[in-house]
């Protein structure tokens, strides 16, 4: 395996609604900052890969116009995934593994604000049996949470503790959208939003963008003092039919974690893409993380949930902590689909 590292990460501040900018205007600061931080331009990049989906803003082929953000003329080597940017990063990592290119730019973005997000997300369900019922994404998460509680995997107090800690951690994250210091008791005093979920158990709706620069070997060492090396990366998907899955565990995360080598060393920090509070606890179990691991110091998806970018942001948050010397080895997780259907796990590490 070739040594490939995250050498730069940038994100726009998460906001409920970015109405005054179109998508490419919202995205440009993230792309320009990610390149500028390592003194690079698009002419230094071998491969560009983006993640987004037209369903969120309701604009067809929007990824074509957002490509203008990088300056794609004369033609560049470029690809797009209708996925979170974490999967775009996976494609870029594979491309760099081929050995022909040394650098890649990965970016992703979404504006969820133009549409009704929980309804838009029903369109990712199977179109024959589940999609026509229009089950919104929060209700599906509530089904999962109830199954998790019924299986006595944890309690509503455990969920509330995740919600409270995430928003408290977000106080240190200038890009977070929801950040406050509120006790578990306060959280539990709220009524149900969609039982057993309280509003605090649910993520915000967020507009934003993020970008990462990857570099191989010596290029990475030249650009930054402490590259965040990708030591393992793997993604797995579970059946689309919710009834075929045990919703109280995350089998795909467990397999991806094993393939990525999470257990091959100590984990200092983990950034988990868990839009709902109970999902963090499902993921902690699947990743077999100990109590000493710092989980979601950024606040995670409960503090800012940019669709198509929250997964890549997890990778960037771990990489930043490694590059800053605050952590040596970390795990970043990204999810996609309803109730943690698809999961990607990345292990990042700094030089000793």
């Amino acid at each position, binding site marked *: 395996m070739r040594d490939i590292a995250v050498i730069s990460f940038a994100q726009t501040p998460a906001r409920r609604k970015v109405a005054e900018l179109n998508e490419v205007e919202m995205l440009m600061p993230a792309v320009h900052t990610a390149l500028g931080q390592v003194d690079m331009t698009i002419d230094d990049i071998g491969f560009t890969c983006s993640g987004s989906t037209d369903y969120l803003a309701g604009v067809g082929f929007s990824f074509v116009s957002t490509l203008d953000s990088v300056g794609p003329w*004369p033609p560049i080597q470029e690809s797009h995934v209708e996925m979170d940017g974490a999967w775009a990063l996976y494609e870029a990592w594979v491309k760099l593994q081929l050995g022909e290119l040394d650098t890649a730019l990965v970016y992703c973005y979404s504006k969820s604000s133009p549409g*009704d997000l929980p309804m838009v997300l029903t369109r990712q369900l199977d179109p024959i049996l589940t999609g026509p019922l229009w089950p919104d994404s929060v209700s599906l998460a509530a089904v999962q949470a109830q199954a998790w509680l019924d299986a006595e995997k944890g309690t509503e107090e455990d969920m509330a503790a995740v919600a409270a800690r995430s928003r408290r951690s977000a106080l240190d994250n200038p890009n977070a959208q929801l950040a406050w210091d509120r006790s578990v008791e306060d959280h539990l005093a709220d009524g149900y939003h969609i039982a057993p979920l309280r509003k605090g158990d649910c993520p915000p709706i967020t507009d934003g963008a993020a970008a990462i620069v990857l570099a191989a070997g010596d290029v990475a060492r030249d650009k930054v003092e402490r590259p965040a090396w990708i030591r393992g990366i793997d993604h797995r998907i579970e059946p689309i039919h919710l009834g075929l899955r045990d919703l109280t565990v995350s089998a795909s995360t467990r397999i991806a974690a094993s393939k990525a080598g999470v257990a091959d060393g100590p984990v200092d920090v983990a950034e988990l893409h868990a839009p709902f509070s109970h999902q963090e606890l499902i993921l902690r179990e699947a990743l077999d993380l100990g109590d000493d691991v710092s989980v979601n110091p950024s606040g995670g998806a409960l503090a800012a949930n940019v669709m198509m970018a929250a997964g890549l942001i997890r990778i960037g948050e771990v990489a930043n902590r490694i590059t800053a010397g605050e952590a040596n080895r970390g795990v970043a997780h990204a999810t996609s689909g309803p109730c943690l259907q698809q999961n990607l796990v990345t292990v990042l590490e700094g030089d000793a």
Partner: protein
Amino acid sequence: MPEISLPDSLKDVEPVKSVRTPAQLDYEFTAGDATTRFLRGITQKKIIGQRATADSRVYVPPRGADPELGQATPIEVEVAQVGTVTSFCVVNLQFYGSVMEIPYVSALILLDGADLSIMHLIQEVPADEVHIGMRVEAVWRDDADIEPTLESIKWFKPNGEPDDTSVRIPGEDHGTGLGSWVGGVAPTEALVRNPRTGEGGTSK
């Protein structure tokens, strides 16, 4: 086809051969900064392009970023309301949502002073007389009906000027297309100058 065996309970049930699952999603679209500034110009009956730097290309309509430089386009440049047909299509089919009487002409029009063609209608001339190089001018709605939409220009019509015989197709000066290999050399290397680095290309 493999044999499909059904449980007894479904034995005499008519099989479902297809389903229709109509879907509708409503969005509140916002134009963004560049398009907002462009459409404000339209309400003044001005066509205002945008560029990133003093010598970079002028985009009409502006989409927010210069694809050569990857930069925002804050500089506004009013362009002419007269231009040249660079390509066109005679529409002979009625389609859903269309309010036009067929046949009609949809054309790419390169306005004088712009580096990107806009797509609009050509009217006030028989469809079979429209041709590349034809000079046309904008025909606006009545002042009372001007709104922040490109439809405030009803259509373009021939303005009587002689044809532009050296019609410049946008992008031509960096190659006529991605398929144009020259002497066995890929178009990017043979024809395309990189506007950011100034490297490469055989054309200006």
